[in-house]
C-alpha cells in the first residue's frame, strides 16, 4: 500500500474550501473550511463572498490536511483540483492554488470534473467501483443521472434537472417553512416527526407524456410551487401550517422521483450498481428509500457516509488517484476553470 500514489485534492467549486489527501483508495486527510454561515443571511450562496473566503482559507486548510495525513507536499505524487463545473470565481481560486502548489513543488496537476469526483469518493469507502455503474448526483447545484463506463475516461449523462436542483428545492421549501439555510438537514429533521403521506405533492416528469422526452430528467420547480400554494392556502385560511407533515410529504416526493428514475436507469441498462452522491445524498430518507427499493430489483446501492457526500477535497483526491492509476496524462499548466464543464469530460 505504501507504494500506491499519494494524491492531493483541492475543491473550491461552491462554498466549501476542501483539501483531501489519499493514498490509493485510503483516505488520509479531509480538511474543510466552509463559508456557509456567511451566506445564510442571503438564503443562498453569494459567489463573491465564497471566492473571498476560498482565498483566505486555502493555505490554512492545506496546512491542516498535510498535518492530518502526516505528510509534506514533497511526498505528494500528483495534485488534483476541481476545474468545473461550479461558480467561476470560486473555481478559479482553487485552480490557481493547485497550479501554485504544482509549480512550486514541481508536481503534475490534474484538472478534474466535480461530478465525476462525487462518484469517485465512494471508492474511499467501498473500494473499486464496478463498471458500468449508474450514478445519481444530487446537491444544491446539480441533479444528474449518469452512466459510468470508465470513471477515468467515459461518463455519459442520462438526464438532469430541467429547472431547480434537488438541493435548491430543499432550500426554497425550508425558507417557506421558516427553516434555516441550507434547508436539507432541517427538512430531514422536521420530516422525521411528520407523515410522508399527509399531502400528495406532485412528482415532476413522471407522467407518461413527460417520460417520452424526459425519462431520466428531473423537475422540482412545480413541486416547490405546489408546496408554496399549499402552505399559503393554510396561512390565508388562518390555519396553522403542519411543518413536519409538509416537510415529510415534500421530502417523500423528491426522494420518490430520484430513486424511481435512478432505478429505472439501472433496470433499462441492465446495470446493478447505483452510486448516490452530492449533498442531498446525506438525506436520511433518500438513503433508506434507495436501499429498500433497490434491494427489490437486485441493485446494489453505494452511498458514501454523509461527510463524503457533501463537497470536499477527498473526493477530488479520490478521482485524481483513480486517474493516476489508470495512466491518464496530467493537465497542462494553462488549464482553465470551466464553470460549465461538460459531464462527459472527466479531466482536462
Amino acid at each position, binding site marked *: 500500500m505504501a507504494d500506491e500514489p499519494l494524491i492531493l485534492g483541492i475543491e473550491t467549486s461552491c462554498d466549501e474550501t476542501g483539501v483531501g489527501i489519499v493514498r490509493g483508495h485510503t483516505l488520509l486527510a479531509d480538511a474543510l473550511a466552509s463559508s456557509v454561515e456567511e451566506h445564510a443571511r442571503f438564503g443562498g450562496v453569494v459567489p463573491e463572498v465564497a471566492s473571498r473566503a476560498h482565498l483566505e482559507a486555502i493555505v490554512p486548510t492545506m496546512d491542516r490536511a498535510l498535518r492530518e495525513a502526516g505528510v509534506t507536499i514533497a511526498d505528494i505524487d500528483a495534485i488534483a483540483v476541481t476545474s468545473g463545473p461550479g461558480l467561476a470565481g470560486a473555481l*478559479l481560486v482553487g485552480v490557481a492554488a493547485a497550479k501554485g502548489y504544482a509549480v*512550486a*513543488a514541481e508536481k503534475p496537476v490534474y484538472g478534474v470534473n466535480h461530478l465525476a469526483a462525487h462518484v469517485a469518493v465512494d471508492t474511499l469507502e467501498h473500494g473499486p467501483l464496478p463498471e458500468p455503474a449508474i450514478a445519481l448526483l444530487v446537491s444544491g447545484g446539480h441533479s444528474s443521472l449518469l452512466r459510468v463506463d470508465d470513471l477515468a475516461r467515459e461518463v455519459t449523462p442520462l438526464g438532469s434537472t430541467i429547472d431547480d436542483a434537488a438541493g435548491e428545492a430543499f432550500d426554497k421549501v425550508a425558507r417557506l417553512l421558516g427553516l434555516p439555510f441550507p434547508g436539507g438537514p432541517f427538512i430531514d429533521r422536521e420530516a422525521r416527526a411528520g407523515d410522508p403521506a399527509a399531502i400528495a405533492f406532485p412528482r415532476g416528469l413522471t407522467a407518461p407524456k413527460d417520460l417520452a422526452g424526459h425519462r431520466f430528467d428531473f423537475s422540482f420547480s412545480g413541486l416547490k410551487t405546489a408546496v408554496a400554494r399549499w402552505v399559503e392556502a393554510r396561512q390565508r385560511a388562518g390555519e396553522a401550517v403542519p411543518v413536519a407533515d409538509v416537510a415529510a410529504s415534500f421530502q417523500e416526493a423528491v426522494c420518490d422521483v430520484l430513486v424511481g428514475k435512478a432505478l429505472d436507469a439501472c433496470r433499462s441498462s441492465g446495470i446493478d450498481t447505483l452510486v448516490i452522491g452530492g449533498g442531498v445524498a446525506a438525506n436520511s430518507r433518500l438513503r433508506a428509500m434507495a436501499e429498500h427499493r433497490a434491494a427489490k430489483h437486485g441493485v446494489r446501492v453505494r452511498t458514501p457516509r454523509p461527510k463524503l457526500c457533501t463537497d470536499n477535497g477527498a473526493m477530488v483526491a479520490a478521482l485524481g488517484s483513480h486517474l493516476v492509476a489508470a495512466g491518464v496524462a496530467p493537465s497542462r*499548466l*494553462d488549464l*482553465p*476553470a470551466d464553470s460549465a464543464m461538460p459531464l462527459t469530460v472527466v479531466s482536462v
Partner: protein
Amino acid sequence: MVDSSTPAVTAALVEVSADGVAARAQRCTVDARAHGELLAPQVDAVLADADARPADLAAIVAGLGPGPFTGLRVGLVTAATMGQVLGIPTYGVCSLDGIGHPAAAGEPVLAASDARRREVYWAVYDGAGQRIAGPNVDTPAVAAERARDLAVTVAVGDGAHRYADVLGLPVREEPRYPDALALARLAAERIRAGAPGEPLTPLYLRRPDAVAATGHKPVLP
C-alpha cells in the same frame, strides 16, 4: 514577483542585491479574461528563462491590487501557495505603486487603473514617488477633482488613458500597468532585512455584490 491586478498578467524573476534590484526574466501578457490560464505558465517560464528552480527563490512579492477581484485573486493565491510550499516569506505591495512610483518625476502624479463600471482605482504620488492619497475607487470625475486638490499635473496608467477626457490631465505613456521591477524595488528593503512575510490581503476597496434574499413572494393570485 507576480501581479494580476490589471489586464496585464505579470511574472518576473528579480535579483535583489545589496546595491540594486535587477530583473533576470520577465513575462507579461495583456488579457483581461485569462489570468487563471496565463499566470502559472508564466511563472514556470521565467524560472526556466533564468535557469532557476523554485527552490532557489528567497521571497515572493505580489501586487495586492486594487483590481478586478477575480483576476486579482489569481496572483495572490499563486504567491501565497508558492510561499507556503517553499517556506519563504511573501510581501504585498499596492499595485498602483507599481505605476505611480516609477512615473513620479518631481511633480505630483495621478496613477489610475480601470475598475470597470465606469470607475477607476486611483492614487496620487508626490514628486518623489511617495503615495500621498489613495488607493481609492471612484468615478474618474471624483478622482480628477481630488487630483486637482493635490496639484497633480500629469496622469499615468491604463485608467488614465481610458478616461483622459474626464481627467483633463496630460497622460504619460508608461508605465501603463504595474511595473514588475518597481514593485520588487518597493519590497526590496523588507527582502534585504529578512523581514517576516505577511498574509497577502487583497485591496478590494468594494464590498461584494450580495443582495439579501427577499421575503417569500406569494404564488397565489
